[in-house]
């Protein structure tokens, strides 16, 4: 039942082993995939082989939203998705897609490990899944083809490709740029031909998608830090023993710590490689950006009580 295959293991003993299917859409070199592999290894160790995790990488089973639906249906047991993908299920997750809710990396880590986020993880229990842990996806900044972005005024008249979510187009509007949504695969040529003037992402986009060849300015405005979230099906979760649940929770936490240095390393490598492509990195005074998006954050807080609750809690965390 529910994506688990139960087979009796050994003769007479009551030991049952289950294999849980975990799907995600990253490649097998990505730090998050490595962390998930580590998670699978730890779970098996900690449960003495009772719980095994089978990973389907590269989006083999579908996009984030498809796999979430499959998880609800019981075809897969676990998945890693961007926090943005969870906004369809729980308003609170919108908090992570809003700009400047985290002061810096340290604040981000502390908030993600705080009790309000743990509460949020459990809010979707009756929708079919709960959150287990998060993975660092870095800070997203603007990178552009022709000139560096130092102030929101620099974005005026520029067409910037954003992820296809309302919060992201609202953010672009607040900052004065024009939001364009397009397939990730089309971005390179669109940057090259001037169909778009820039994008927003973390540093690894410069090298993975080779965008650094056509976008030469990476401006560290660090507007959002959108984490990846590991979720497990509620049905599967309830079918596990208390010990197994504890083992999974510990393994999840360990894998988050395991991923942090890997992520930093991959960002560092990306920056070095991008510099050799001729990309210039510039620091940015974030104050005018924060001021520009303040009304938008206000609006989201007013419209979604869960977002307000999280943002208020984040403010008290130092």
């Amino acid at each position, binding site marked *: 039942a529910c994506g688990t295959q139960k087979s009796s293991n050994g003769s007479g003993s009551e030991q049952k082993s289950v294999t849980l299917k975990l799907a995600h859409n990253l490649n097998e070199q990505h730090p998050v995939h490595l962390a998930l592999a580590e998670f699978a290894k730890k779970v098996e160790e900690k449960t003495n082989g009772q719980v095994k995790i089978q990973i389907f990488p590269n989006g083999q089973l579908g996009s984030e939203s498809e796999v979430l*639906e499959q998880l*609800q*249906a019981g075809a897969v047991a676990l998945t890693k998705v961007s926090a943005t993908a969870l906004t*369809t*299920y729980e308003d609170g997750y919108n908090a992570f897609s809003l700009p400047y809710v985290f002061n810096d990396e340290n604040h981000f880590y502390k908030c993600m490990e705080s009790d309000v986020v743990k509460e949020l993880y459990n809010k979707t229990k009756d929708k079919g899944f709960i959150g287990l842990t998060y993975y660092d996806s870095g800070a997203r900044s603007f990178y552009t083809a022709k000139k560096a972005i130092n102030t929101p005024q620099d974005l005026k008249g520029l*067409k910037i490709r954003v992820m*296809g*979510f*309302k919060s992201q*187009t609202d953010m672009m509007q607040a900052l004065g740029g*024009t*939001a*364009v*949504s*397009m397939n990730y695969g089309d971005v390179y040529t669109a940057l090259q031909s001037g*169909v778009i003037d820039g994008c927003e992402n973390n540093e690894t986009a410069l090298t993975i998608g080779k965008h650094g060849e056509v976008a030469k300015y990476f401006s560290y405005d660090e507007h959002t830090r959108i984490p990846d979230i590991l979720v497990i099906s509620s049905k599967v979760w309830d079918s596990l023993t208390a010990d197994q649940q504890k083992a999974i929770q510990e393994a999840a936490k360990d894998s988050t710590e395991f991923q942090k240095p890997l992520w930093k390393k991959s960002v560092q490598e990306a920056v070095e490689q991008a510099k050799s492509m001729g990309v210039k990195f510039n620091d940015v005074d974030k104050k005018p950006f924060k001021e520009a998006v303040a009304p938008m954050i206000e609006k989201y807080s007013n419209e979604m009580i869960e977002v307000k609750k999280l943002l208020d809690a984040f403010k008290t965390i130092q």
Partner: protein
Amino acid sequence: MKKVKQFVDTLLAYVNSALLIIMTALVLWQVFTRYVLKNPSTFTEELVIIILIWTSFLGAAYAFGTRQHMSLIFLKEKLSGIKKKILCVFIDSSVLIFTIFILVMGGQQITTGVAGMRTPILNIPKSYIYSSILVSGVLIILYQIYNIIEDFKMND
């Protein structure tokens, strides 16, 4: 019976043609907003995808009604009389069964399953997208019943 089918055929032909024109126009509009208005439209892509899904499933239904789906026809051509009749009924029943389980039951399950969820840009209910497969399924059932009756009547 025949009149009802003709009516559904004509209706679907018009709806599908209209949807195809709308999609083409929307894509051209997207190019126009980007190059002429210098203010690229952000909603067209999502809207076009939704229309594409509807066009595809309604078009598929129409193609079942007019027997235009690709298939291998050796066996059918080799047989005659009652054997051919049985084969045709079997083929059309397979289509009917697949439609009942996947397009209709599955479509119903998925449409209710996404209740409350909305699309990221236009913020319209996701059920508006998934219901296309359900509507298409109902139409294909009607067409297949008609086709099976035709199979029975066939004499050669």
